[in-house]
């Protein structure tokens, strides 16, 4: 009996907290019908926001995946002075408020920042421009690949890599043929979490972007803008699209499990 109560309570809670908001977003978006809703997406500012978000996410995901793999590898497989500290450092973005992470970049590259005036002279714009948005997103999404890959590498141990080295494999061959295939599940997980976070980041990006519609507005910023301007259909359509993109990234995470299960059933 208690079991069913707990089971029911869990589901109720999940429905209320997790399922209702996206459902509400979708209803609001479709309030005036699908046509009206889709029409708002053809607005140039909306399209620019979508493209900017995709571009920033791709760059952040690619860079953080490469860095994340190497960082996890170094942290797990080697013992060196400062290792503990580096491990804590990697998790920093998880604990720092995104707004603060955005502010840091402004302090460095803003008009009054440390490097801002110098870069300005060379006509390089980072704050209130796309590079700033990318930097802020990189910072916020840095821990995900490292943190998901590390525990699996830990379990993997060094033996297989050493066996590969003794068989004559070079550094990249070991990484590509032995280490990465062993952690591919976790890696996919980390990449998709990074993607979801990169798509949706608001705080850090908001501080550095300067909210220039059509130029430095990502989807989350554009949604806020639309909502504040009482364009609720447009705002919610964009929100629904963003939610859909992020959710498909997260759903993709479990795809390998499904495929494996299907293959098992066939076998």
């Amino acid at each position, binding site marked *: 009996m208690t079991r069913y109560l707990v089971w029911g309570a869990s589901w109720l809670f999940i429905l209320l907290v997790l399922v209702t908001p996206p459902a509400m977003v979708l209803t609001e978006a479709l309030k005036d019908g699908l046509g009206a809703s889709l029409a708002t997406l053809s607005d140039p500012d909306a399209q620019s926001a979508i493209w900017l978000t995709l571009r920033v996410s791709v760059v952040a995901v690619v860079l953080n995946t490469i860095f994340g793999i190497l960082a996890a590898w170094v942290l797990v497989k080697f*013992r060196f002075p400062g290792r503990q500290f580096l491990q804590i450092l990697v998790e920093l973005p998880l604990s720092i408020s995104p707004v603060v992470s955005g502010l840091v970049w402004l302090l460095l590259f803003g008009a009054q920042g440390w490097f801002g005036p110098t870069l300005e002279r060379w006509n390089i714009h980072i704050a209130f421009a796309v590079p700033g948005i990318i930097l802020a997103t990189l910072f916020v999404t840095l821990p995900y690949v490292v943190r998901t890959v590390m525990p699996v590498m830990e379990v993997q141990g060094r*033996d*297989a890599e*050493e*066996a*590969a*080295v*003794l*068989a*004559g*494999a*070079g550094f990249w*061959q070991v990484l590509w*043929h*032995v280490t990465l*295939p*062993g952690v*591919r599940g976790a890696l996919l997980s980390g990449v998709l979490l990074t993607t979801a976070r990169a798509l949706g980041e608001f705080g850090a990006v908001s501080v550095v972007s300067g909210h220039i519609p059509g130029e430095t507005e990502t989807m989350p910023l554009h949604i806020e803008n639309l909502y504040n301007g009482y364009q609720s259909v447009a705002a919610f359509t964009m929100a629904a699209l963003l939610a859909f993109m992020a959710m498909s990234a997260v759903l993709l995470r479990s795809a390998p499990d499904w495929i494996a299960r299907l293959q098992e059933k066939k076998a």
Partner: protein
Amino acid sequence: MSIEVCNLVRLAPGTQQRLLDDVSLKVPDGAFVALVGPSGAGKTTLLRAIAGLDGCNSGSVLLDDRPMTSVKDRAGRMGFVFQNYALFPHMTVARNIAFGLDVLPRGERPARSAIAKRVEELLELMQLQGMGGKHPAKLSGGQRQRVALARALATGPRVLLLDEPFGALDPIVRRSIRTWLRELHDTLGLTTILVTHDQEEALEIADRIVVMQSGRIMQDASPQDLDEQPATEFVMEFLGEAVSFSGEVRHGRMIADDALVLPFAVPEGVTDGPITAMIRPYEMTIKKPGSAQDVLSLYAAPRGTRNGYRHYTLQLGERIIPFYRPVEAADAQVQGVALDISRARLFRQGLLCG
């Protein structure tokens, strides 16, 4: 291929503790050497240093008189088998075995068909026919171990290094794979170094046994020499059950402190003074003493039979010692007798004497 280790020293990272303390070892071409010792003795450390997996603080490793500086120098010339197999779980057995060939630079890599042929050969040699398409997870421990061996042998190395390769196998598989490995060593003409903590395994399979303790080589000898002339008390203890008797040598005779032990003549060259005699439980015999006042009773409690010996425990004053007798003689009288330990090895300050 001969292997020579010269004055190897390895310190535990960040400390002054010596994991390998000035170790030198010569393994001639075609030898089968076992490194034995308690855990922490440095045997795996030595094997890894020979393979180049861990560096050393000083000393060198020579392969056919040529110094090996990095793992790269050794790649393809030394096969290494890890205790837990270290197979690549995402690759099939065939891909695992072919790995050393697959990673060769394009110019040196054999053609795909040649690799496939080599894999087939190795599968057959390892008695794994038809297993090439399976993943390691589907194999038994013994099969995995043989895949690991096949992978280590794929590039045709002349040296095989084995780190406790049978540790995870059950006793029956262990015994059969042991004999099979020895045959493999002989047919392929390999030079093999095996690390094991099981001294019986070492005695059975190797031509030479290197006993290690706290990062040093205590003795390097054939199984027979090791049994007859263990260099130290530790070696004697490590190679099998041993009972020790303290006593004194007086006028060329060893007189044990235990009253029930018969005095015996020591070899020439053993001077008078305190001494320790160590003996295997099956080397002790019981005898009717010569003079009447020595007649004492031993209490022997039977403890089952193994390998043709009946095991007893003897109450000898304060302590209880093991004592084995051949099954044929097992029921003989144990009343009114004394212990004859004249086959014991004699040690002073831990070292063999005489």
